[in-house]
């Protein structure tokens, strides 16, 4: 049985991992509390993303420079967060969560309507703020903090509380309506519950429950969301309406072939057929211009990042930090899967950006803040001083 061999191997994995391969002395990276491998991988990803954006934006230098500057800020935030010990996040989790919920309610009341959905809270001239974005981190933080206190594996009453903790922000975000974000908040928090060791029997039960709830969900979907689902099942049914995006993006990817048409040579991408080509659909530009090789390279890069993240998470001693780290890295992957899935036409269009590549600063800041927490957890991975 490979399973048993694997778990034996796993049990031999030292609880206190050796210093991450650099040297015996406290290396520069350790004192910076950053993981050099993860950092290098993220920088490689961002660099590749800027090259694709340059083409996707129609060689719009200002756009690329703007995006690069946003990344400077986002990486700064990541490095800053890495400096705090996990206990800090643990302490602040309830406050951040509570504040986020209050702001979501405020958005519901006063948010200005942007793109047909209320997402922004604005202090005029100071800041435009998307509370739902903050909840992507605050919700799993809260659930991790709660479950790590109750002791693992979680028992039913604790699961019930966790469900409420997850449900409250998700319902508020779904009301906005913002399907993509509510999906990501749900999955990031559910991952925490799964990693905490939810029993298989309960998992099976919940899956059945979810299956039963699907018709209910369908009834409660907004019209345009239903339209999207139907279109996804058959894009050709509405070639001028919501099927347009999917048809154009699959055409872009498919016409790229093995090697792609070359940088700036994508006719789909450069000739305006592809909507939202520098935001949610940017991966279609990559597919068209760099072909299957480019796509596999990108997915490989993402995969290595996920592996490194999981490795770091598995070396952490304290439960709260471990759960949060696992949630951050697996949510990151869910972004990738959902985005590439929807652009290549195997998932409905839900409005999830391609992490660290799509144009726009909000999601990059959230993602890198998450990586900041991950690095903090990793840097302070020992419970007990040597």
């Amino acid at each position, binding site marked *: 049985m490979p399973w048993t061999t694997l778990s034996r191997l796993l049990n031999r994995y030292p609880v206190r991992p050796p210093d991450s391969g650099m040297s015996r002395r406290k290396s520069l990276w350790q004192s910076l509390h950053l993981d050099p491998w993860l950092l290098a991988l993220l920088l490689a990803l961002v660099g590749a993303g800027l090259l694709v954006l340059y083409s996707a934006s*129609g060689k719009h230098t200002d756009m690329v420079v703007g995006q690069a500057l946003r990344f400077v800020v986002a990486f700064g935030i990541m490095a800053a967060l890495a400096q705090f010990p996990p206990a800090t996040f643990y302490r602040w989790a309830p406050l951040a969560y509570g504040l986020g919920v209050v702001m979501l309610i405020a958005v519901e009341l006063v948010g200005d309507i942007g793109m047909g959905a209320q997402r922004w809270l604005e202090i005029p001239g100071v800041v435009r703020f998307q509370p739902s974005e903050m909840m992507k981190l605050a919700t799993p933080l809260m659930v991790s903090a709660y479950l790590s206190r109750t002791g*693992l594996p979680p028992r039913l009453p604790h699961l019930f509380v966790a469900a409420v903790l997850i449900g409250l922000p998700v319902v508020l975000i779904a009301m906005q309506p913002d399907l993509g974000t509510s999906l990501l908040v749900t999955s990031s928090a559910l991952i925490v519950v799964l990693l905490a060791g939810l029993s298989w029997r309960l998992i099976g039960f919940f899956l059945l429950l979810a299956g039963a709830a699907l018709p209910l969900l369908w009834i409660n979907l907004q019209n345009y969301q239903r339209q999207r689902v139907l279109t996804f099942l058959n894009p050709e049914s509405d070639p*001028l309406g919501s099927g347009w995006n999917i048809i154009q993006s699959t*055409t872009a990817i498919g016409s790229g072939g093995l090697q792609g048409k070359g940088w700036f040579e994508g006719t789909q991408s450069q*000739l305006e*057929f592809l909507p939202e080509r520098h935001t949610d659909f940017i991966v279609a530009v990559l*597919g*068209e211009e760099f072909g299957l090789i480019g796509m596999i390279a990108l997915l490989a890069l993402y995969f290595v990042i996920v592996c490194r993240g999981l490795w770091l998470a598995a070396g952490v*001693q304290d439960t709260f930090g471990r759960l949060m780290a*696992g949630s951050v890295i697996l949510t990151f992957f869910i972004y990738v899967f959902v985005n590439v899935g929807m652009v290549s036409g195997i998932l409905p269009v839900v409005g999830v950006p391609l992490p660290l590549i799509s144009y726009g600063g909000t999601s990059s800041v959230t993602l890198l803040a998450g990586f900041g927490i991950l690095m903090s957890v990793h840097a302070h991975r020992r419970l007990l001083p040597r």
Partner: protein
Amino acid sequence: MPPRLDTLKNTEQELRIFRRRALLALVVVVALTALLVGRLVYLQVVEHDKYSTRSESNRVRVEPLPPTRGLVYDRNGVLLAENRPTYNLTLVRERVDDLDRTLERLVTLLELPQDDVAAFKKRSRQRQRPFQPALLMSDLTQEQIARLAVNRHRLPGVEVEAQLLRYYPHARIMSHALGYVGRINAEELKNLDAGRYAGTHFIGKTGIERFYEQQLHGQAGLRKVETNARGRVLRELGRQDPVPGKNLTLTLDTDMQQLAFDLLDGRRGSIVAIQPDSGDILALASAPGFDSNRFVTGIDVASYQALQQDIDLPLFNRAIRGRYPTGSTIKPFVAVAGLREGVITPNKTINDPGYFQLPNDSRRYRNWLRWGHGRVDMERSLAVSNNTYYYSLAHDLGIDKLERQLGAFGMGQRVGHDIQGESSGLLPSREWKRERYNQSWYPGETLSVGIGQGYLQLTPLQLAAATATLANKGDWVKPHLASSIGDEPLPDELPDTPDDIDLPDPSGWDTVFSGMEKVLSGHEGTARRTGKGLEYRMAGKSGTAQVFSLGRDERYNAEELAERLRDHALFIAFAPVEDPQIAVAVIVENAGGGSTHAAHLARAMTDAWLLEEGHMPGEDKDSADLGSAAGRSREDD
């Protein structure tokens, strides 16, 4: 509180669970990644040919269909803003090989004046969404279109497109009230909903055009077209029609507006007329005006500078932004303040020796008539515009009560409902002076405010609104320019309308009114010459405002300097007294000694409205009058 330290065994167990689950997660990640790769292989290898062909033949383009902007009419249906078809020069940067050379070519072809070349080039570099055409020049002449057509093959990415362009038939007199549209600039582009404005190059910049931008603009539509390889449209595949902007009917009366400009006759000044019971602004004139049409197409640099540097400030909207000392026109309002605070009664008389003295102060505050008016009651104080009476009254009130009561008339606040860029004027108070000069308030300054000469400054609109409220015996109706948007009339109760003004004894209004009537009809009224031959009862009040200083950076010659240091003439009026149909405020800058100059203008406005346009109460209303006053009857007690 820090996490509870579990027993080591527990910790170990949790760690084990986690690692097992993480490994499982990794398996799922691998599976899902494989799924994606599988899908990509399917698309890019298996189905590659199909999609390749499809993208080759993909000649479908989405084109925005900009909405037509709503039209603007005056109260009688006179068209004030329309759209006329014109041709524009646009450029799609992504399709231009060599921008600099293309621009050079265009400059030569179109024979642009040297001054405008820089602006022209700047426009081509303005940030646009990718593949959105940038507007380089609007309203091309026939000859320019012909030249561009001949050279088309040498100018890839340059297009001539037909577009409706805003046109203002009565631009000269409506430029300030109506405002104008102009090119969307980079700053505005950032805050626009790109979908709504796709294909639109213009946006309201000032006035009504800006205030009602949302309603006037509408919503862009889309069409999907099939093109040939050169981008020529072959057929339309589908469309989503644009939602045109809503038409706007204003309360303005073009004839009254024209009259106001004729009356100001090249002088600097402003006339604002309001229908008291509805709040309809009938005329909102600021002279000199300018031709707003030139701003639509993009005014050339030289003309713009000429307008900017013109010492008569034609671009300055005096009616809503010009802050003037009120002079004696403030007196009726001070009288109402005294009645309301109970510090004076209509019949109380004071003796005017020609000056007023504060207790324990030897300084004399003079009346304009050196030897004084003798015994003066409220009615006469208004008719002869006696200063001493108001020095005394202002002193009795004190600045705090005075400020509160003048504030009730809308002074020191923006009074209009839909007036873009309105100034709130200046209603001085103790706090204001403390903040502004870091000094305390002196009793003498209260006296100045009492006769409208101190810090107090109002815009013509505020003065007209206060006069309308006075004519309504204290009932507030917010002045507004729109009477209906689309088919929706403006609501009767506008938001943020100030509270009505009640007098403890309502007969006080009649005292103030008869004093103001005697200004025009009394044997010692300050505007008795204007009042000759009145066919209805008119109430008014004259005022003179001293000019203390001029803008520092402006250059004047001696003769001009003398002219520009003359007093401003002001007049407020409403008529007919028993059922006011019109309230007017007139300000003529540097009118000089003729303080009655403004009174004549006010009379001409009331005559026109009541006699020529037939708005005398009891007469049949002009059938074309939209009568937005309907349903806004005043409560007369």
